[in-house]
Every structure is written in structure tokens, then in C-alpha cells.
């Protein structure tokens, strides 16, 4: 298991050091600094073995988090734990920075003591942790016996992510379908690979211990219902269930509140949600993706010292919808001396420090097209190596789900309290963003 956990700043100074196992000595702290943080070359692996000691590291801005072990630990678990550790810290004090870590070092030690015991990760749900580890000292002294046992039963209980006795005057929930659409396209416009990775993020402000059921236009479910010919299709009555067609989901993963065996057997998504914001599910689709933009590049080398670049972007969605925050990034060679740009829409600038022309458009409706052309002057070089021509990348945000996913319903049942599904106010929002959206040129 994890033998020790260290946090360093960018210079390699230790901010937090917690050793859990006897086989990890103080010299491990230095070994990592010398061999990884101070190593000149690029880090070639997130797992490093130095003198029979294994170091796992991740970086958040310029902070290094390293877990150390001498055993054959579950590597996936160690990384998952490090990410979780970051989540917990952010939930407590915001951004993970040197300043914040130093300001909260007592708290961090307290957290590390709680969520990692002898190197074994323990309950690390912030909802539960915040009930007994607080920034303003410990409540411990003032708690009643009932409160104490409520805390412990929640931390160890089956529903470790939610506490009892939550009350809201207004029962409300927000569902965000956040998708990132990824594309790799050849210069000829052939889709080399495309997939959507989506997340359903839920903000729940619900009283009591509500039992929820979530439904979407999953092809497997719809097909099953179609065959069965059931009359009381829940899709009709509920939120935004207008889209008839269904989508094929390649794979999905769920927050630990979702009953996985139920999903496996019935493909229904039922759960008792954590309070506040959390990620209900992630999914991935590859079929019938709506690619919101198409990039058509044209690069011409005019002699040895000049390049002509022309890029057309076409928006491919309903004209009534508006895409926002559009940014096209056209890489330029390292020996670029000057660039002249003309674009029909938005603003374009050559950024020498980033070796790219950055073209920004605030808004663009569907079924439109726009064009940029640039002349790039090059310094003559005798560098034999050809310019690698990195792909043209794009960023944007669209108000629909490129996968075609639709929320059909989210039902809330709370039998003990007197509110019903109809009393809950529900909001759904779809946002499609570019993930890695690249066209080779």
C-alpha cells in the first residue's frame, strides 16, 4: 500500500510530508526531488522507480503530489487516490497552490490522517468529511452523542455520500449535460476518429433521502420498450423528452451512488444523490455524432520563404442555434518572421510566442461559413528537418449535445417527507464543447 505522501512546490521544496509505512525513509523525499523534479529532461513516465522505491506523481499547476511505496500496490488506485486528494483539497480551500497549501497545512495533515490509514484509502467523500473535519477547529467538543454516532455511521455507512436530515424549503435540481466532442480529421476531410465524452452533472437541493431515477434516450432502453409496447412511456411526460430518436452509448460509468447491479440487469439508473453538485455519470459515444464544425485547410508553400494558408470553417447545426467562444488555432513554423492575416469575421492575431495564428469569433449561427487567409513569411534556414505541420485545432461551445443525448426524465421519490415528484423544480441544460478537435493540414 501507499507508504508515504509528499507535496512539493515547483522548486522541489516539501510542503507536506506524511509517512505511513516504516519502509519509507526521509531520504525518499529527496530522491524524488533530485530524480524527478530537478531532472532536466521531460518526465517520461508518471511512475518512477528509484532504488526499489516506486514514486507515483501528478501535477496540479506547479504543485507536485507524490505517493511513494515499496510494495506491489494497485497503481490505478494510487492515481485515483491522488486525484481524489486534489478534489478534497479543492473542496476545502479552493485552488491547489503553494500559498493555499501552506495556509492549510494543519487541515491537510488532518485530512491525510483521515482518508489514508496505513496507506489504505478510506472514505474520501467531501460531503461526509466536512461533517467532522472543519477548517474552524473541530466541532468535536460540542457534539451530542447522537450527532457523533450519526457522523460515524455516515462515514462508514452504505450511503456514505449523503447525510440524514437535509431540509430545503424549495426542492430543486439542476441537470447539466456537458459533452466534449473530439475529432481528428485528415486534410481531405475524412474523419479519422471522432467520439463524444459526456458527463451528466447534477446539482441537487432535495430534502431527506430522496430516491431518484434517471432516464435518457439510450438505444437499448428505447428498443426494449418499443418491443414491449408499453403504454405508459415515462418519456412522454417528463423533461425535454421531445427527441424521439435514440442514441447508442458505447460505455458509461457512474458515481458510486448509482446501483450498478441494477443498471447491469435492468439498465435503469437509480440512486440516492449526494447533496449539492456531483457528477452522476460519464459516457462515451462514437456513432452518429453531430460534428458542429468542419475545418477545411489549404496550405501552400510558395518557395522556401513563404507559406499561404487558407482555412474555411463551416458550422453544421440548426441555423437558430448560436455557437460561442469559437477559436481556431493555426500553427505556424518556428522560423516565421511575419504574418499577414485577413479574416471575414471575428479577430485574428499572430502570436509569435505560441507559434500560431489565433482566430477568435464570438458568435456564429448554424449553417454558416467563414474564412481566414494568411501569408506567412519565413526566415531561410538550413535546418534539414521539415516542419512537422501540427494539426489545426478548434475550440467552441454549442448549446446542444453533439452525441444527440436527451434527458427523458428524472424522477424523485421521497416517501417519508411530504413532497412528491411534481413539487420538485427541475432544470436541464445541454452544453457541447470542443475536446481535442483537430484537423490535419
Amino acid at each position, binding site marked *: 500500500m501507499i507508504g508515504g505522501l509528499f507535496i512539493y512546490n515547483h522548486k522541489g521544496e516539501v510542503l507536506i510530508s506524511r509517512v505511513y509505512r516504516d519502509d519509507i525513509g526521509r531520504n525518499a523525499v529527496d530522491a524524488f526531488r533530485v530524480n524527478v523534479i530537478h531532472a532536466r529532461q521531460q518526465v517520461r513516465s508518471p511512475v518512477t522507480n528509484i532504488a526499489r522505491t516506486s514514486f507515483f506523481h501528478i501535477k496540479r499547476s506547479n504543485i507536485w503530489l507524490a505517493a511513494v511505496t515499496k510494495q506491489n500496490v494497485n497503481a490505478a488506485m494510487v*492515481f485515483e487516490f491522488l486525484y481524489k486528494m486534489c478534489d478534497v483539497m479543492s473542496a476545502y480551500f479552493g485552488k491547489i497552490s503553494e500559498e493555499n497549501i501552506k*495556509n492549510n497545512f494543519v487541515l491537510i495533515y*488532518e485530512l491525510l490522517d483521515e482518508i489514508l490509514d*496505513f496507506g489504505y484509502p478510506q472514505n474520501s467523500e467531501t460531503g461526509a468529511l466536512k461533517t467532522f473535519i472543519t477548517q474552524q477547529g473541530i466541532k468535536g467538543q460540542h457534539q451530542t452523542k447522537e450527532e457523533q454516532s450519526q457522523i460515524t455511521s455516515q462515514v462508514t455507512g452504505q450511503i456514505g455520500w449523503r447525510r440524514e436530515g437535509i431540509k430545503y424549503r424549495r426542492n430543486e435540481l439542476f441537470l447539466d449535460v456537458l459533452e466534449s466532442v473530439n475529432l481528428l480529421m485528415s486534410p481531405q476531410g475524412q474523419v479519422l476518429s471522432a467520439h463524444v465524452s459526456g458527463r451528466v452533472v447534477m446539482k441537487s437541493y432535495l430534502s431527506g433521502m430522496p430516491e431518484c431515477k434517471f432516464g435518457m434516450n439510450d438505444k437499448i432502453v428505447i428498443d426494449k420498450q418499443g418491443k414491449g409496447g408499453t403504454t405508459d412511456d415515462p418519456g412522454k411526460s417528463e423533461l425535454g423528452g421531445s427527441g424521439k430518436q435514440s442514441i447508442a452509448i458505447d460505455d458509461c460509468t*457512474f458515481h458510486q451512488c448509482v446501483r450498478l447491479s441494477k443498471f447491469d440487469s435492468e439498465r435503469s439508473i437509480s440512486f440516492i444523490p449526494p447533496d449539492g453538485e456531483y457528477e452522476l455519470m460519464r459516457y462515451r459515444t462514437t456513432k452518429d455524432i453531430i460534428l458542429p464544425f468542419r475545418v477545411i485547410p489549404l496550405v501552400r508553400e510558395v518557395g522556401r520563404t513563404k507559406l499561404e494558408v487558407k482555412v474555411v470553417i463551416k458550422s453544421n447545426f440548426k441555423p437558430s442555434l448560436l455557437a460561442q467562444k469559437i477559436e481556431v488555432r493555426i500553427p505556424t513554423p518556428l522560423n516565421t518572421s511575419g504574418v499577414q492575416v485577413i479574416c471575414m469575421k471575428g479577430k485574428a492575431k499572430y502570436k509569435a510566442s505560441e507559434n500560431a495564428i489565433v482566430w477568435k469569433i464570438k458568435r456564429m449561427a448554424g449553417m454558416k461559413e467563414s474564412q481566414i487567409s494568411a501569408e506567412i513569411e519565413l526566415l531561410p534556414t538550413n535546418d534539414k528537418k521539415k516542419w512537422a505541420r501540427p494539426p489545426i485545432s478548434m475550440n467552441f461551445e454549442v448549446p446542444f449535445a453533439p452525441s444527440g443525448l436527451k434527458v427523458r426524465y428524472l424522477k424523485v421519490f421521497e416517501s417519508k417527507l411530504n413532497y412528491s415528484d411534481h413539487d420538485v423544480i427541475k432544470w436541464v441544460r445541454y452544453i457541447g464543447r470542443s475536446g481535442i478537435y483537430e484537423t490535419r493540414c
Partner: protein
Amino acid sequence: MTDSKYFTTTKKGEIFELKAELNSDKKEKKKEAVKKVIASMTVGKDVSALFPDVVNCMQTDNLELKKLVYLYLMNYAKSQPDMAIMAVNTFVKDCEDPNPLIRALAVRTMGCIRVDKITEYLCEPLRKCLKDEDPYVRKTAAVCVAKLHDINAQLVEDQGFLDTLKDLISDSNPMVVANAVAALSEIAESHPNSNLLDLNPQTINKLLTALNECTEWGQIFILDCLANYMPCDDRESQSICERVTPRLSHANSAVVLSAVKVLMKFMEMLPKDLDYYGTLLKKLAPPLVTLLSAEAELQYVALRNINLIVQKRPEILKHEMKVFFVKYNDPIYVKLEKLDIMIRLASQANIAQVLAELKEYATEVDVDFVRKAVRAIGRCAIKVEQSAERCVSTLLDLIQTKVNYVVQEAIVVIKDIFRKYPNKYESVIATLCENLDSLDEPEARAAMIWIVGEYAERIDNADELLESFLEGFHDESAQVQLQLLTAIVKLFLKKPTETQELVQQVLSLATQDSDNPDLRDRGYIYWRLLSTDPVAAKEVVLAEKPLISEETDLIEPTLLEELICHIGTLASVYHKPPSAFVEGSRGVQHKRLPARAVITLVKRTGLSGSNMGAGLGVAPAAMPASLGGAPAVGGGLGDLFDLGGGVGMPTGSYVAPKTVWLLAIKAKGLEISGTFARRGGIIQMDLSLTNKAMSVMTDFAVQFNRNSFGLAPAGPMQVLTPLSPNQTIDVSLPLSMSGPVMKMEPLNNLQVAVKNNIDVFYFSCQYPLSLLFVEDGRFYRQVFLATWKDIPNDSEAQFQIKDIHLNSDVASNKLQGSNIFTIAKRTVEGQDMLYQSIKLTNGIWVLAEMRIQTGNPNYTCTVPRIVYASLLHSQ
């Protein structure tokens, strides 16, 4: 209030000042001081001098202060064991506190204080906490047992904590169960042979129930523990698989990977023709692909594991090539791993896409990545024959870029392509020669020289080219020197007239001026060959070379199996067994995949042994128990080795001494002893008939009952003269394999009836299975590896042969005498591994792997894999 100020005090009299503050009356000041101490501790300053002062702050009702003091204690108790005792009282008191959080905190911290004297005081509180009413305290106490075991294992056993821990597996709280499982697994690891984690269907059921209810981390502990279980049959393993598959949808990648491990392992036991087996295979692909959308570090772990999974079960991901395409922004470690997997998945169906990608990668910035991409193109050419031409032209395009390391890498792989497809792509040689000057890496130079030597007759200026290398002969690396020597000798043999001078020059350089023994030896051999018999030299030097295989970088099968058992762990990231990087007793245990259920094996044998089919069909379930259970073969092998006088005569199979089969008292005076032999491809039964009766015996005849391999007498038994009393005659009875087949128990049992003028007598005897090994049992070398790889899932048996004092070559020679053929041999970590094949009379192939550790007196550890391959037989 910010705490960062504690990091900034660097005055000299600091310790002294802190001491004063720690002893202050004001609570706030005390707390501040302790914080400062902890901050100094973090940055590595020695604040152990403050030990008594800090411990004095321990008795407080302020929980935050208490936790800080505990933190200090954990760090320094070991260096101040005597003073650490001072803290014991407080711990014991805290373990009785009404607040469960404080009880748990005390027991958690006590376990971290690694002082022998303290552990004694720990036992009582720990015992109470293990039975605490609050699950939070119990789950903390469970881990504490593992801590205590790490300090003093004996104490834990004596105090009976292990039993209490085992009881906790049945606890009502899932988190207590999970921690108990984690603690037990850890303790069990340091006692490899103990039966600590006594996993049986009941406990497994409890674990599977807890699996649905506990935290993500607990699920990992439970799944990792489940993976060590061996289900008793395929039905049990299917039902576990069914209950584990829902975990594949968990958001935590580690839960997913641990579930994959359990499934990959238990799948081994499922019959391949089971519907569920196919379903399971299909279910595995999507979660594996999803892992690739996790954070980069997790992607890396996932990819290293996928690399193993693809080698073990290529069918799972064969349609998922695209997801392994490299993204421009991927970290380099992700890129390199993806590339590896792409090559493994390359096939005729997707080769066009793969090549287009690889060509793209070859223009990237990172040198290692580009090199690997170029190398990958070469490997595609070798792997997918149809793509070879396209690969070669892609490589030529890359050579035109003139980027130095790209050119060199391309030349190295083109050499391999020439080896694989001789006389096909020589047209490119001219282009290669143009780049001769730019080659500065030994590997590339050696490759180029090899090409020139190999195709010397088609390169007009081959002599000039090679001569140009010769100038700096002594500055070259050994690899280049050896290659240059061989190339020039080849050239000389092809164009003797013009190159006499050159060859003399290189021979003298190699033999006289070099201190590299390999080079000198090779030089002398060539020299003598050339001077004594040029024709023989030609035959040796220009001999046709064995083809190279595409699968050169596969992980050795037994290691692969072990790594599959370690999916998700560091071992699977390093691709090394835990023993290679873990110290001490942990990780020494080698894990293995379970053997496939017996029933499948029968079905496959039934298919393959055509003349056996009918017989086997009768009693399928029992049949392989004896054949698959290798002792029958193993015993035979042992005998073969034991052959004392056979060292000098490697040919001819082993014949056991005759044993008495039929006792005279049971057969009215006829005694029969005998043995079996295989001579020149004919199986013979050697019999000695002795007449111990008073009267003469005549009219001998023999008959066999139906038997497993259809053995039958090829002709009548030739006993020409009557057998007088007290006379013995020896008879050899040739046998054929054309008799009726029936499964026998044991498999090699033979029931014989002998008749004479007095009566009919029955006896049974057992023939060595080696009798059935035929002379043409040499498996095709090229197919061996592929077949081997195909089959490990099917059946495997392992046994040891003891006390064999032979080295691997002698052993292999000796076995060949009995028609056990060594197909390949390699040496891994001081072990010789012999890969062998045997063909039985009924067309069944047996593939085996034998490991021989040199110098081990007891000495052979043999790991044969018995495999029934219908493959060749059906062709």
C-alpha cells in the same frame, strides 16, 4: 488567519523559543507552538528535542491540538522510545472515550507508533476496539491489526487478533468488511503458505455482497482479494463473473481494472463454447476503451495493462484500433504506449489506416516517438505480408526527408524486411546507399553493411562501399566490426576475383589487430574455411537463413500469465513480476491463471483425434483427467531421463525392464513378464513366457481388449516350438494402432488375454505413453509460437521431475531419442527453457515447455503445457 507564517521562522534560537511557548499557560499559544513544530518537521528540521514538551500538550480536550500532537508522536516516537511510553496512558484513556471519533483516533495513532514497548500496552485497547459497537472504530481497529502485525507478527498471532479479524469479514458494515479484507490480504502476503485468507464459497458470497455496498476503495480491496480465489468449477467462476461485471461501469478506474483482473482470471475456467464466455468478452472492450478518457497518468496505467490484455486475448480489442491513435497533445508516455498497442492490433483489415497514422507520427518532434513510429512501420511490414510493399515505400519516403535519425531507424527496419522477404525489394538498395554517409549509429551502420554484403552481387560498387567502412575499422563498435567482417567475406565468395585484397585486409584486421575475442574467433573461422575449402565456405556463409518471425517482442507466456494476475498493480505497469522490485517475502509468490475446465478439453480432443473420436465420445468427462493430468506423461519422462547407460547413445527410445504381468500360480503354471518398446517406428510388446508347470504348453495365442489408443497385435504371436517345463522363451509381438478404441482407466491400461492349450488367462498391464510418440512429431517451428499462444487457455498441467543430473542439451538429446522434439530453446535468467513437441499415434499434438535450472541438483522444474491442437491434424 493563515498558517503559512509557520513556515517562515528560521531564527537560531528557535528550538529554545518553541520550548517556552509549548509550556505556556495559554491554550492558544500552545497550539500555535505545536503548529510551528509540525511545520519545521515537514520541511525536514529536527525538532525531536522538544519531545517531552510536545507530549505534555497531549492531554487536552481540543481535538485539533490532539491530532497535531499525535502527528508529532508518529514521527519521533521511534527515536525516543523511552519517552514515548509517557503517551501510553493518554492513548489507553482515549480508547475509552465516549466519542467514537476519539476512540478511533487513538487506536489509529497507537498503531503508527512503532515502539516495541508500546505494542504490549496496545493489545487490550485494540481488542476492545475490534468489538466496538461503532463501525467507525471497528474499521479503524481492523487496519490497526495489520499495523501491529508489521511491528510484531508473533504478538498478533499469540493474542488471537487474526481470528477476530477473520470474524470481521462477516461484519454487518461493508466498510469494516473491506478493511478487514485489506488487512488480512496484507498479512497473508507475508505468510505465503498460511491459510489465513480461507476463501470458500461462503466467504466469497459475503465479499460479493459487501462489494455492492462499500466505498470505491473498499471495492478495490475486495476485488483484489477475490482475484486470489480459485473457484472450484466453471459454474462457480461464471457466477462470480456475473456478480463482478457491474463494477465495469464504476467511475473509479481502479475499480474497473480490478474487476477486469478478476474477469480475465476466472474466464480461464469457462468453456470457450459457452454463450456466456462470448458475452463476457464483448463486455470487456467498452470499459477498457473508456479508461483512455481518464487523466493521463491513469491512461498510462491502463495502456500498460491493455498491452498485456491484448497479448493474452487479442480478440477483445481487435476492432478498437482507432481509439489508440495518438493525439497531438498526449504526454509522451501515453504516445509511446499507444504506439505499442497499435502494432499489436495491426492486421490485414486495418493496416491501411495504421500505416497512414504511423507515417504521420514519423514527422513529429519527439525523437524517441519518431524512432518508434519508424520501427513500427517495419514491424507492420513483417507482421502483415500484404502491406509489406506499402510499408517499404513509406519508409523510402521517410528516408527522403533526410532527417538523420529517421533515416537510420528506417535502414535498421528495412534490413529486417529484407530478411523476412528475401529477393523482393532490392530495388530500394540504391536509395539506401545514397545515405551511407549520414549513418553514425552502430545499429544503422551494421544494418547497412549487412545489406551490402547480402546483396553484394547486385551492387556494382559493393567493394568500394565496404572498403570505405574498413578505413576506420578500429573505431567502430563490435557490432559493426563483426558485420563488416561477414559482409566482406560474403562479397569475396560472390566476387572472388576483384576482392581478394579486401578480404585479406579485413581478416588480418580482425584476427591480428583486434582484442575482441568474438571478432578474432570469427575471423579465424572464416580464414580457415576459405583457405581449406571454399565450397564449404560458400555453403556456410551464404547459407539460407531461417525466416524471422514477427512476434519478437512478446512477453514470455508464463510471465504474461503471472502479470495478468497482477492487472492494475505496479507489476503490470513495469511488466515485471513483483519479485523483481519488491523486497522481502512479499511478492515472492508467483500467481498463476487457473486451468480451464476439463470438459472443454475433451471436446477439442474429440475433434482432433479422428480415429479416437468414437472412443472418446463414450466417456468424455473422465478421459482427460489422466491424459491432461500429466503424471502419466511425466512419469514417462522421468523414466526416459533415468536411463543410466544411455548417455552415449542418443538415438533409440527407452525400454523399461520387463516386469511380471501374469503370475504362474494364477495361470496354471504360465508366467508372463514383459515390456513395451518402440523400434524403428514400430511398437513391440516384448514377452517372456515361462513354463512353470509340469506339462508342455502349446497353441499360444493373444488378444487385446479395446483400449484408449486402439493398440492391437499386428499378427499372431509366433511361438513356434512347444514350451517345455521350466523353459523360457522370448517373443516379440509387433503391435498396430488399428484396433477398436475405448477409453480406459488409467488411460494407458491394456487388458490382454493369452490362450494356450490349457486355458485362457487374463491380465492387464500399462504401457508408457512415450510408446505412442511418433517419429514425425517435430512441430513446425514457425507455427509453434502462434499455436502456443493460441492455446494456453485450454489446458495446462505442471509437474516436476526430480534428481536429473543432465544439462539441457543432453536432456534434449535424450528426449529426442524418445521422439520428444525440442523446437526451440532459450535462456531466461539462468533457466534454460526448452519448448518441445510430441505427436501421438492418433494425431494429437502435445506441446510442452521445460525449464531447467542449471546447477540445481534436484534439479529440473518442468512446466509442460499439454495442449491438444487440432490445428495441424485437420489440415
